[in-house]
């Protein structure tokens, strides 16, 4: 099986770097960006299997980024990560458009499991 390519997007650089390193240790080709523009740019440049995306970010927010990503590649699964809650009625429709929504802090094994599921889907 080809190596799984994951793009991690969060404004917290420390978090992104830790995710990238830990996923790489689990044989996942991961790379990270800390803002929306870079994320869209990377998606345009490279084919990813899964995008891990923080909802609340300065500048372009998570939902906007997800929309732009879906414009580029409608089949690319997005796992949303939030420091708030996933049962948010205001953004119910947007959350439904993602593959999964997880609340921080996320256990790495659960994250890997969700990535695998997303890839298989």
């Amino acid at each position: 099986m080809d190596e799984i390519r994951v793009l991690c997007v969060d404004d917290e650089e420390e978090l992104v770097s830790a995710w990238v390193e830990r996923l790489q240790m689990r044989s996942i080709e991961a790379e990270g960006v800390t803002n929306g523009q870079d994320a869209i740019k990377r998606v345009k440049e490279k084919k990813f299997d899964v995008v891990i995306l923080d909802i609340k970010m300065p500048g372009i927010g998570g939902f906007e980024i997800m929309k732009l990503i879906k414009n580029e590649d409608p089949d690319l699964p997005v796992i949303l990560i939030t420091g708030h809650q996933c049962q948010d009625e205001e953004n119910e429709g947007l959350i439904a458009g993602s593959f999964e929504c997880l609340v921080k802090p996320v256990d790495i094994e659960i994250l890997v499991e969700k990535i695998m599921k997303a890839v298989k889907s």
Partner: protein
Amino acid sequence: MEKNILKNPKFRYQRLWIFSMLIMCVVSLTPLIILTFTNYYQYEEVHTVEFTHQVTQLLSGTKQNLEFFLRERISALSFIINEKSFDELADKKKLRNLLSNLKSSFDGFIDLGLIDSRGNHLSYVGPYELLGKNYKDQEWFEEVTLQGNFVSDVFMGFRKFPHIVIAVKHEIENGDFYVLRATLNTDILNDKIHSLMYWPQSDAFLINNEGTLQTSSRFYGKILEKYPLQIPPFAPNAVVKPQHDAEGNTNIVGYAYIQQSPFILIVNKQSVDYMANLFKIRNRLMWFLGISIIFILLVIFGSTTFFVKLLRKSELRQAKALHDMEYTNKMASIGRLAAGVAHEINNPLAIINEKAGLLKDFASLKPDFNYKDKVLQGVDSILKSVDRCSVITHRLLGFAKRMDIITEVIDLELLLKEVTGFLEREANLHNINIDFHFTEDLPCIHSDRGQLQQVFLNILTNAYYAVKQGGKIDIYAKKLDRDEVEITIADTGVGISEEHLEHIFEPFYTTKGKYGTGLGLSITYGIVQKLGGSISVKSKLGEGTKFSVHLPIRSKDF
């Protein structure tokens, strides 16, 4: 003002009740009492006029009767003295015949006598020995000499027996005169005035113009005794008027001067006669007034109590709704604050989690190195702490959910354990033992998770407060026959007195003094109602308290 109302609601409603009662009593009873008394006094007036009229008529009739009686007898004597000569009258035999004829035609005559101008009794027929008596110095003789005829008052005279004298004078041509004199029985006067005495407590009698009783009186003495009261002033017709005596009784007193005689006819109707009808009416009116007052008071009491209670309930409901709203807003604000805090903490927590995880990954993947175990132990400790923090932030986020009802399928067992989990630290601190008793057939229910958490959290917080150190709390949950579940939370705490138990679900009612808001159980009550369920409480002082919550299995249309 509103604060005072809430502080002393009982006093306020009591005052309102008393005020309403007084106003309604005054407004409804005053006209009734005034009307009743006015009615009574009007009746009394009419009754007095009627009674006075009745007495006046009787008195006038008797006066005419007496006047006619005397006039008739004077006329009879005048006829005899004019018709018969002196000699005929001086003849005792003829005089006897005349007396006999008089007696057969007119009642009351006792004797008949002829007296010359010097007062000598020349001829006499009658039961007494009066022949030869001289009347020159007697008052009646002087009167008849002057006036031509005369009716005396009652006097004893030579007979030593009360009698009336009537006399007529006849003048002859030589300027001399003689007098025909007759005596009348006083019994006849009694008979004449008897008709005025048909009331049991009435008195009718004659007095002369000097105030001596001419017939016996029921109240003022016997014949020829002195009449104790003032002689009434002269009036040509009968006079009747009500008179109040010293004891406050009203008597009807009437008098009439009898013409051509010294007699004054007096009638006195005592209050008993006069008042008898009035008493009857007064008693009837008093009964009517009494029954009306009792009836009105009962209606006023009932309606005032009902409306004040209604007002109290309505105001309580309003206050509760207002404070429900305030509480909801407060909870929503706390929820938003908690969500913000949780979110801000979750980000650094995620970094700690990932960095510690990374360290663990490194340590796990590298071959053995010095202190590898201690590093791994340290990292695990960090990860466990992160987990604990994460549980707390997730709970805080749970509170941030909106306050409207969101129906979802709820496992009560899990929910109750989750709620007790919130208070775990408190339970451990006070060594409180919590036991769960769930029946196997306990179904999942359709309800609002957040609201139910609130309900059980409120009840459990009270239970914790009540049991203090080393107590026990039992939580039961079972399915009931109808489509309901029953959750019972029983503690072994201090219990609640009956007096407090009545008010426990009222807003602002607290037994915790400054530590309680008095809102917890009222909010709980409101939520349970909103969820289509019901809540009840049983308690015994010193033994504990048991709250039972009934919830529908299927959500109702909220």
